[in-house]
């Protein structure tokens, strides 16, 4: 289990992680979703102690990561593809990491086979494709048979077969009772891989809920209704906690009522309903809704940064 309390990280004047608190539970895949620069990678680096928090704490299974006597057995981390010396072979890279905890060569060969690196294991990592680099990073993460896995964008650069393999892998690891924390900007991938979602934007947690809850945009139910008497129906269903949106002359979106309740209300007033469609929000919709402001903010930032750069060129 990973627990962050009021975790914050500032680099100079820029706040990367802004006092986040969350916990990542064992036995399920927890997705970490957010736009680029939202603080996902920084949070993950804070968990394994590569960066020191400006304030707050983060623990893995009750202790700061650096206090564990067998860190590779505690946490397997894929933080960046190719955190590897390019002139060293994949096999020697893994062997060097394994040596710190006396992990056997047998286990090294096992993770090489497991990640499909067999044919290239003795070749220099510098010549690896992005996908192969990712597989090596995952091999290193699995080396210590860790209880907790932290994978930063693991499907980045993988081919469709590799994406499927990672999905199968992380679900299997979670099913064994391990804690799996996986970041991605691929919302569709999260929808099929994650059981639970933590959404981050501009260093703050925007949502922390089971994936179904995020998908339906909280508990609010949303139903698209078609009827010839839109005004009559709107009056019929109007109540506290119910939101009605006029989509077209004969179309309403009703939030906060089940399809059955709407049908019953219409039936009681004798209003004909020609269509009644419960809406499921896609993860993309939910994601855009949650992070929309953040993305806009980022575009402005980029514009602001580009301006002085142009000035510099003209001089």
């Amino acid at each position, binding site marked *: 289990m990973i627990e962050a309390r009021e975790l914050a990280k500032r680099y100079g004047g820029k706040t990367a992680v802004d006092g986040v608190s969350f916990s990542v539970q064992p036995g399920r895949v927890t997705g970490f979703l957010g736009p680029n620069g939202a603080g996902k990678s920084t949070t993950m680096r804070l968990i394994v102690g590569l960066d020191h928090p400006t304030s707050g704490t983060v623990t893995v299974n009750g202790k700061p*990561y650096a206090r564990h006597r067998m860190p590779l057995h505690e946490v397997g981390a894929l933080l960046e593809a190719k955190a*590897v*010396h390019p002139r060293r072979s994949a096999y020697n890279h893994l062997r060097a990491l394994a040596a710190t905890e006396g992990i056997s060569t047998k286990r090294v060969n096992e993770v090489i086979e497991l990640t499909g690196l067999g044919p290239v294991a003795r070749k220099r990592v510098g010549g690896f494709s992005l996908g192969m680099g990712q597989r090596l990073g995952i091999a290193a993460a699995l080396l210590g048979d860790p209880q907790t896995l932290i994978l930063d964008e693991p499907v980045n650069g993988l081919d469709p077969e590799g994406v499927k393999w990672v999905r199968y892998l992380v679900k299997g690891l979670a*099913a064994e009772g391990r804690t799996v924390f996986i970041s991605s900007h691929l919302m569709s991938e999260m929808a099929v891989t994650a059981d639970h979602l933590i959404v981050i934007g501009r260093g703050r947690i925007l949502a922390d809920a089971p994936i179904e809850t995020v998908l339906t945009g909280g508990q609010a139910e949303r139903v698209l209704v078609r009827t010839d008497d839109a005004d009559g129906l709107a009056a019929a269903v109007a109540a506290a906690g119910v939101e009605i949106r006029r989509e077209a002359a004969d179309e309403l979106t009703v939030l906060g009522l089940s399809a059955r309740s709407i049908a019953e209300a219409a039936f009681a007033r004798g209003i004909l309903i020609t269509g009644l469609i419960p809406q499921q929000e896609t993860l993309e919709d939910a994601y855009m809704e949650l992070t929309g402001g953040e993305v806009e903010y980022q575009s402005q930032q980029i514009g602001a940064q580009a301006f002085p750069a142009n000035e510099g060129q003209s001089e």
Partner: protein
Amino acid sequence: MSTAAAPGSRSQRSWAGRPVTFGRVLRSEWIKTATVPSTVILLAVSFAVMVGLGALVAWGIVQLASDPESGPPEGIGQSLQTAAYDVPSAGLPFGQLLIAALAVVLIGSEYTTGMIRSTMVAVPTRIPALLAKTLVIAVISFLVGVLAAFTTYLLAQPILGGSDLDFGLEADGVLPSIINTGTVLALIAIMGVGIGALLRNTAGGVVTLVGALFVLPIIAGLLTGLADWVEDAARFLPSSAAGQLVATQVQPGQFNQVEGGLILAGWAVVLLAAAILVLRKRDV
């Protein structure tokens, strides 16, 4: 999904890890050092350059001794013998540059390649990894230094024998000089690791250390006439201290071998201590 089919399963029991100890970190750093081509290449080049330079100096001494025009005048014969005693360590000025470069490259490349993040995740207490790397590099540098000096000694004897300048290992200060050639390289290597870890950059580290070893003495030499303290201070430069550590004879007013060794060790300790302090605090 069945547990047995799951990858990396605990039930497979093939994982057999143990707590991180300094010995295990040392082994990890040894594997890392031995599995990059730059290590082998730079060590081989250091050895070849030191032996080659030593042989060249031996040849030069013989030429001087057998110069038919001037002939060895009174008194020069004695100093030529002393010069011959210094032949085994004669390649040191260039050897230390190459070893300095090796040390900086080995630590600097951790940062430039991103490998440091893998290292620090495996050894999150950080300091053991730096100390283990330092120890590995220092020991191999020491061995290369001793081996190169001893090879030079063996190679120089037949050359020097032509002018009856050959000598045995028991000659004044020769054996300590051969061994301390290794000591100098080990201490220079520690300085290299310290600077590399502080600057986190291969090129910058090499330039800094080459500057300290090679350029500073030249600048000091140019400024010597301007103030007395320059000459005094210059004696504390790593290159001067290294020269005293391997000297077979100490000139009056110079540091002796032990003092030279302590000064060089001081440089190494200060740089390594600074690297440790910074490594503890800084984000990787």
